[in-house]
């Protein structure tokens, strides 16, 4: 058994200053599905008490799952981090 935190510690992330994914909290407030919360393999979407979503791009795997799963037009602006930044795998 490994916890999610233990898993996340194994990949290397070189964090770009500029976020490559921007989530529009305003749109998320009206979202009932919250697909991103379940599907993100890095668990980067956290639902807030006020109905919003907290998102942190720093430990992102750049897999694209969130924007495919999100059903609200315009909620997620998605691109790749600048070359050389972001996740780096050594084993997978």
């Amino acid at each position, binding site marked *: *058994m*490994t916890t*999610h935190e*233990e*898993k*996340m510690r*194994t*990949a290397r992330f*070189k964090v770009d200053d500029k976020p490559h994914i921007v989530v529009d909290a305003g749109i998320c407030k009206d979202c009932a*599905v919250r*697909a991103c919360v*379940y*599907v993100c*393999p*890095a*668990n980067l979407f956290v639902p807030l008490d006020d109905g919003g979503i907290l998102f942190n791009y720093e430990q992102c*795997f*750049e*897999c*694209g*799952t969130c924007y*495919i*799963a999100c059903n609200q037009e315009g909620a997620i602006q998605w*691109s*790749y*981090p*600048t*070359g*050389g930044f*972001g*996740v*780096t*795998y*050594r*084993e*997978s």
Partner: protein
Amino acid sequence: MMTSNATQDTEHFDVIVIGAGPAGNAAALITARAGLKVLLLERGEYPGAKNVSGGVFYGSRILHELIPNWWEQAPVERYICRRDIALMSATTAVSLDFRSTATGYADPPYNGFSVLRPKFDRWFAAQAEASGAFLLNSCVVDDVLRENGRVVGVKVRRELGEVRGNVVIACDGSNSFMAKKAGLQREFDGHEIALGVKEVLGLDEHLIRERFQLSGNEGMAFEYLGAITENVHGGGFLYTNRDSLSVGVIGQISSLVEHKKRPYELLEQFKAHPAVAPLVRGATLREYSAHTIPEMGWHMRPKLYADGMLVAGDAAAFCFNSGLYLEGMNYAMQSGLAAGETAIEACRQGDFSKGTLSRYEHYLKQRHVSEDFQRFRFAPPFVNGERLQNLYPDFVAHAAENLFRVDGNRKQKILPLAMKSVRRFRIRPHHLLRDFYHAARAYLW
């Protein structure tokens, strides 16, 4: 090394390949060998840095044709001569175990190898470089460059700006923004894409041999269907590497959402299943990773060419997922080679129009890429069906439990036992018939 000015002002490439995965590396290698001026662009710090695969490279002999005895120099893990496909319920697994030393399985050129992509892709890209391709790492391509409706190069982020070339080959993987930007591909639906989460677990080499009954460098591949993903459409895998295991779960995105399942929790459940737990016991986590997989093959392929551009590999949905097989690396390579052959011919003719590049279809057919996908086009929707994903594995596991249970009660013959299970699982005869037809159409003829 190129300077940015040189690139912008004077450098013009015959071929620009986006992405140094198996598709891009193959395309770069073959075009560079033909003497063309080739640029290979990769957004990772090195080729493979961003890449995840379950890890069995089947049909690996295509590489043998390019680089004879490649496995002697490449970072391969084990050759796969044992396979096991298991149908699971929460408590039980029923499996088909295949093991062979027939020609080509346990001797050169082998049927398949387990590989770790950050190592393998890096090696493969170095072969393309050795053939004369320019590899530029840490470089994101943001768009294709268009003039008069034709693709004439790419836009890369930061200092380089624009790079021009006669043929752009998009090998940028399952989320191919390039195919979309060029207007060749549409947005995907959550039922067409699966998410794979994976762990590489370190385990002593001797222990691997003992535990999986392997000698020397033999390796094995397990695939699992059924309860491990609960109601989520997908499956699990476990592959042996030299001194580690690749263990992962694949789940269709729409069904992860529908059932509100977190992929990494499914992975933990999978590792705890009674059929899997003893195999991963004592292994230590080395790396966790995630990546998407285009699952619908033929149904989601893009337009494969435009004026000045070709699409190959996962970007063209050439990833074969049909329950019995999950093969993407070999098709990525084959389609990369086919795209390369097309580019070579176009350069020879000095014509990069859609008409000339349509030769791609011919080369894809010659390499059995489009043929395989067309022939098995009914398989992905079939294996992703509700009953095949959840009901039948559970049913088979339950029926086997009854068959093997010896509890002092009188023994029953197989048919009444099976009928009991059919009733319990409320399997409808007309569903069975229909599924049998779909299975036959998907696999038999």
